[in-house]
């Protein structure tokens, strides 16, 4: 394992060029826009105006850079993982280490920006939705740092799957409200957060966690997350003298993917690959692969691909990863898909968990299960493209929060001797289905009901 020394110096901030989208009213082609009650329009206009002023304000940029450097620990390094890459057809794999950020994921990049914006518009309270808990933890962290009161909405189902992050948020002084409506996951947490916002909009700012939602959230969150790709592009060029052949990231709402993709969008030779949560398999209907298995529609304030039935009702998504378990996706991903600039593939729970275990045992890195979907995508793409292909993977978060889920998946908790599990013996090529289907299903059920 080799680690690149920090290549990017966060000095005077140079504003990178934005892509040619969205338009002034937040549309990415036919996607995006604002599908919200009129009562929220004034707040969205206020946010848009304040954000557009703030993003070119030198005082803000200096403060934002300082926080990213001194508090988050940016730039995050790029790590080559050759022992893991032995299982990827001889491709070389570089990881962008967002797992090493303060709070353990890329989510902190966005919340520091939005928390500064909250203070700038004179509001004293922030609310957030969270799925895996990473965005909730990041928001609670930024609120503590900046003296804001903080309420986090989290589906009751997710509070059980991610109990560690619930405790972290409460330690940080946030109020965590378990949401018991609908499917009791991220989708319903977003509904509750919008209801809170429309009621308390005079004092409260909604710190949205991903590149979805009504304008300006998709563009604003992209701007705050694009530091991932801006750094990584420079780091890869410096160490390799060339760009990667492909950039891979997991996609739930899609903020870490947009974060690493944006800098590479103008580089036509670089493939952009988003890995969606395939759950039990897209053909089973139990998945969260919104672009792969969904259709365009309107959800949570924007037009984008979503999982819906013939009546236009949002259908429930399924994924072992709480952070990807969302039936919608950011509108920019829908646009990148439709114009053919990015491709989206589904990774099943079993494939993601195989990659998860492999990275743990070959490189000493426990990834978030979300990020493990991107790792699985890299293993498959590496085998397709062959030796010497250079793949850049966004390791969007660390897996501490997932230890319980992984233990249940691999049956580690109730055994004296630990079964090495899939891909753990690195002298052999990983075998498909190393975890039998029966075990896999049992493990997942245990994970959801624990």
């Amino acid at each position, binding site marked *: 394992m080799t680690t690149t020394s920090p290549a990017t110096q966060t000095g005077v901030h140079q504003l990178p060029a934005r892509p040619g989208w969205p338009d002034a*009213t937040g549309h990415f082609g036919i996607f995006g*826009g*604002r*599908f*919200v*009650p*009129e*009562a*929220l*329009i*004034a*707040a969205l206009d206020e946010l848009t105006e304040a954000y557009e002023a703030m993003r070119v304000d030198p005082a803000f940029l200096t403060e934002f850079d300082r926080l990213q450097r001194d508090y988050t620990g940016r730039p995050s390094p790029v790590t080559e993982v050759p022992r893991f890459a032995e299982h990827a057809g001889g491709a070389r794999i570089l990881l962008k280490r967002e797992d090493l950020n303060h709070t353990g994921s890329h989510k902190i990049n966005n919340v520091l920006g939005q928390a500064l914006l909250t203070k700038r518009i004179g509001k004293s309270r922030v609310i957030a939705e969270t799925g895996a808990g990473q965005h909730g933890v990041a928001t609670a962290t930024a609120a503590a740092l900046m003296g804001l009161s903080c309420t986090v909405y989290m589906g009751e189902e997710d509070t059980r799957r991610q109990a560690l992050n619930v405790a972290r948020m409460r330690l940080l002084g946030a109020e965590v409200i378990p949401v018991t*409506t*609908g499917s009791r996951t991220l*989708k319903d947490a977003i*509904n509750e957060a*919008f*209801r809170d916002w*429309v*009621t308390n*909009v*005079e004092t409260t700012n909604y710190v949205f966690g991903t590149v979805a939602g009504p304008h300006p959230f998709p563009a604003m969150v992209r701007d705050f997350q694009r530091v991932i790709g801006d750094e990584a592009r420079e780091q890869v060029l410096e160490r390799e003298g060339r760009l990667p052949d492909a950039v891979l990231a997991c996609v739930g709402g899609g903020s870490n993917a947009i974060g690493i993709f944006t800098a590479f969008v103008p580089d036509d030779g670089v493939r952009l690959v988003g890995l969606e949560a395939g759950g039990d398999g897209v053909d089973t209907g139990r998945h969260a692969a919104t672009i792969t298995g969904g259709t365009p*529609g*309107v*959800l*949570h*304030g924007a037009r984008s691909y979503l999982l*819906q039935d*013939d*009546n*236009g*009702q*949002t259908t429930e998504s399924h994924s072992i990863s709480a952070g990807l378990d969302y039936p919608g996706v950011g509108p920019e991903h829908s646009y990148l898909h439709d114009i053919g600039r990015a491709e989206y593939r589904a990774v099943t729970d079993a494939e993601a968990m195989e990659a998860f275990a492999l990275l743990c045992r070959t490189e000493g890195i426990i990834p978030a299960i979300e990020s493990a979907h991107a790792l699985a995508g890299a293993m498959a793409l590496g085998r397709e493209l062959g030796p010497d292909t250079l793949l850049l993977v966004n390791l969007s978060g660390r897996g501490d929060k997932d230890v319980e889920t992984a233990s249940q998946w691999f049956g580690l908790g109730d055994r004296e001797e630990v079964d090495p599990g899939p891909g753990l013996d690195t002298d052999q090529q990983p075998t498909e289905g190393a975890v039998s289907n029966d075990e896999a299903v049992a493990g997942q059920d245990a994970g959801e009901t624990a």
Partner: protein
Amino acid sequence: MSALAGRIAAAKAEGRAALIAYLPVGHPSVEESITAMVAAVEGGADVVEIGVPYSDPGMDGPVIQQAVDVAVRAGVGMTDVLRAVAAVAGAGAVPVVMSYWNPIERYGVERFAADLAAAGGAGAITPDLIPDEAAGWLTASREHDLDRVFLVAPSSTDARLRSTTAACRGFVYAASTMGVTGTRATVSEAAEKLVSRTRAAAPELAVCVGLGVSDGSQAAEVAAFADGVIVGSAYVRELLEGRGADGVRALSRDLAQGVRT
């Protein structure tokens, strides 16, 4: 000619505000919800807002969420909604559909407008569709001579009050408080101010007030300054608490009394 504007003008000619009742299709069942809508009309509702069930009703409070959830899980869709439209028209009230945008988009905007007009519907209220995003609906509703009801809120700027009311036909829905649907002990003071600001922006358009009205005395209070009084959660609660069509009819009588005082 706008069916909604006509009915609200007729109420005004009687020296009163119009009573607009909301009920979602499919709670507790499609048949019972249609019976309840007819009962609301028998009790004195001038207009029935026929709610399209939706899985993510972001503007609704717990009472309506609970009822709509039942309908969503039962698979209630636009065909059932159109049946309710015809029944309400048959009972002598003006039917207007209330729908979040995605069920209409999924059904097909043009197809929805054609089928709604054929069923005798006056038009649609679209709580999460602002005129800025409504190009398809503006075209289809004009094509089929349907009313378009958009919302204004206390937070709307004067410029938005003008542009939103300009896109409306039938009436404009004044969401009286910043918040979600649900009964409240007192009518928000913001409501009267919003109505007067909206009137200034669009003197010719009827302004109907929703969010928080639950009984005859609150209806009377709102009727003093608005052209129509919209009641939702209080009707739904009659069904949730098992009082059925009789409860709905009695509530309509109380509210109808209110809009006449």
